[in-house]
């Protein structure tokens, strides 16, 4: 009996604690529509709940996914003494056609009252397509739907609320509600959801995490949303990555998933085209077809030692599969062959051309604060690009094994990287044959030393393992040329390594991998294949 009593007592304590937690959850205050300032003394506030009844007021961030659309949340009014079902809130929408001038967010320019955003497309890089959930949004359509005229019960709670459905990767909802006279909360209230105290379009909760105070008196490092102040990973580094803080918050569709990028760290967008110049791809051709790397590692792992993996965004990438064009950037690519070079589709003349159209590889088509290179159509905003790596299976020559096109300025230059995968395979086969049966070893440079590697999936260090490491080396090597590595010619006039480090330094930007064959027939055939970049590389690469 005592035991039963203790159990009930524990449950009561737990319930009170849970209730206390719920009470302590934040609320959204109405704003003064002229100043945009929230009124913390208002009798009426808003709480947000997800479809499971969890209070998400403090953490709700709008998003949208191609496969599932945006989440449905519930807007619930906290109004003492008022029957919540007696009001009908409305979604305040923009009257007219918004102008995106790259300077201000047209949906909230105090003292003009804010309106629900209607940002272009779905996300910074993505329009939305017919096959997506919800298809393509109509021009200037609000970034939310607010379908209920009458509040309904929020699942899992005793409260009622109005459904709010996100239609954009980072939209702002503006809801107006009027409580009738004679009630304790009489009056008209305007709420911005999610809460955005400094009306820069970035929710307070996200801004607190990703735009931290720069000093006790400067509460945000991106108060305008136009800031592009990314740095790193090492200091000194270029400042900025060509994407304004707001557009990083709004985010990108990356291989089918929404990703908000971090405005503190520089991001790189990469798309692989595999294969061209024949079939099957050696980088992924479907189940059962040998593809490199085949040791369980990722094709882009080496690049992630230059730009941290969380900041390398693989657009339209299907691991182990072929990849052509993608709708996750502006893609004008048509083909590459040794005979024709790169071919693109000109969007203006609708003809195939060998000159890349200005917006090819553009990742900021829908940016509110676009940065980058001039656009031939200025009204369409500055252009920031990602990197394209194209696999070519040509073997009409044995070399080069990779190239990167005319550059300058990081991804915003007209770069196009080629990786000749079959030449790489043939070359490694030749080097292995030169070893006349000696056992293979692979070394990578780690912590100042060449360290012998083992196959991470437990397999042997065989020809395919060597090719896997070489493939990752050449792919990252060429992509980082597109990030302006190395920025200067290295070596002397008589022994120039071009825009590379000398062979053997251990960086992926070394001009070579190195092979060493032991004299003894019982010795080894050793490959020294860098897999990381050095500190100078990490300081000097450019992202715009």
């Amino acid at each position, binding site marked *: 009996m005592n035991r039963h009593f203790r159990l009930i007592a524990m449950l009561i304590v737990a319930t009170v604690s849970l209730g206390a937690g719920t009470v302590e959850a934040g609320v959204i205050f109405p704003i003064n529509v002229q100043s945009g300032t929230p009124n913390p003394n208002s009798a009426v506030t808003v709480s947000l709940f997800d479809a499971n009844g969890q209070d998400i007021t403090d953490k709700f961030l709008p998003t949208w996914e191609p496969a599932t659309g945006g989440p449905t949340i519930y807007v619930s009014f906290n109004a003492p003494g008022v029957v919540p079902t007696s009001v009908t809130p409305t979604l305040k929408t923009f009257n007219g056609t918004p102008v995106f001038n790259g300077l201000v967010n047209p949906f909230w320019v105090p003292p003009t009252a804010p309106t629900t955003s209607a940002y272009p497309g779905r996300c910074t890089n993505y329009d939305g397509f017919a096959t997506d959930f919800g298809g393509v949004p109509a021009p200037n359509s609000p970034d939310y739907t607010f379908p209920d005229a009458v509040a309904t019960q929020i699942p899992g709670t005793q409260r009622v609320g109005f459904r709010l459905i996100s239609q954009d990767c980072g939209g702002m909802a503006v809801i107006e509600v009027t409580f009738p006279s004679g009630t304790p909360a009489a009056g008209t209230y305007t709420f911005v959801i999610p809460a955005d105290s400094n009306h820069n379009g970035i929710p307070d909760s996200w801004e607190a995490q990703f735009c931290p105070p720069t000093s006790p008196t400067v509460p945000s490092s991106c108060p305008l949303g136009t800031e592009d102040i990314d740095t790193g990973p090492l200091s000194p580094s270029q400042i900025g990555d060509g994407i304004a803080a707001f557009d990083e918050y709004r985010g990108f569709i990356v291989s089918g998933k929404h990703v908000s990028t971090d405005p503190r760290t520089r991001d790189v967008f990469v798309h692989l085209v595999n294969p061209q110049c024949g079939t099957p791809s050696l980088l992924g051709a479907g189940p059962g077809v040998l593809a490199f790397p085949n040791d369980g590692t990722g094709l882009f792992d080496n690049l992630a030692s230059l730009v941290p993996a969380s900041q390398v965004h693989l657009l339209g990438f299907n691991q182990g599969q072929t990849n052509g064009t993608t709708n996750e950037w502006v893609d004008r690519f048509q083909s*590459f*062959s*040794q*005979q*024709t*070079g*790169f071919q693109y589709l000109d969007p203006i003349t609708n003809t195939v051309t*060998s000159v890349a159209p200005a917006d090819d590889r553009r990742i900021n088509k829908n940016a509110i604060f676009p940065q980058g290179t001039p656009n031939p159509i200025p009204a369409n905003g500055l252009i920031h690009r990602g990197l394209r790596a194209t696999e070519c299976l040509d*073997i*009409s*020559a*044995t*070399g*080069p*094994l*990779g*190239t*990167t*096109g*005319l*550059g*300058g300025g990081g991804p915003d*230059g007209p770069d*196009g990287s*080629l990786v000749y995968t079959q030449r790489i395979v043939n*070359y*490694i086969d030749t*080097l292995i044959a*030169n*070893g*006349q049966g000696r056992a293979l070893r692979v070394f990578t440079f780690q912590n100042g030393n060449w360290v012998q590697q083992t196959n991470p999936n437990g397999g042997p260090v065989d020809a395919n393992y060597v090719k896997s490491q*070489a493939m990752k*080396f*050449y792919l990252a*090597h*060429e992509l980082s*040329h597109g990030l302006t590595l190395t920025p200067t*010619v290295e070596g002397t*006039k008589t022994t*120039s*390594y*071009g*825009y*590379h480090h000398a*062979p053997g330094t251990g960086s992926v930007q*070394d*001009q*070579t*991998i*190195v*092979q*060493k*064959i*032991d*004299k003894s027939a019982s010795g080894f055939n050793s490959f020294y294949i860098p897999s990381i970049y050095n500190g100078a590389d990490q300081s000097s690469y450019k992202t715009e």
Partner: protein
Amino acid sequence: MIARVVTTVIAIAFAVVSAVMPAWAGGPADNPTCFIAKKTNTALPGTISANVQNALTQGNTDVDFTLRLSGDNGKTFTFFRASVNMQVFSRSNAGIICALLFDVSVPPAPPTPQAALDLRAAILSHFGLSPTAQFFLTSASLSNDEVQGSTGQWFCNSTLTDPSVLAGPCNPQRGGSMADVILYVK
């Protein structure tokens, strides 16, 4: 009369002696296939020029070669010409010459360009060399290159070239360059 290079005659058969072999990732020395460590007995000094229709394409382009070679140590010279569709982008001067004079395709690769084969045969025939002989370069074979970029290559591209010159001599698609060369034959 074939110039005989007075050097110790050493067989250049591939020697497995702790050799460190570069595997070039593109760049100035894009794995030139016809490099040898030491000269052979037979040398053909002269000049080679290469002119391209499109130095900027990363694919192939038509390249017009003119070789002016001497088989008598510089007393007399003979011209040889060939037009070959090939890749020059990101290739060193040596890499381009190796592709022209040395590389032989192995199926399933496309056949070696007939113009290149004809050129090789013409040179060998003219100087009375064995029709099965091959051409090689040493690291000192090329000199007095007409360098357009900053790293010793004939043709401009940003993998190799100082970006500051991209708006200058590297900008036109058509381009050409020359160098002195000593071809070694064996």
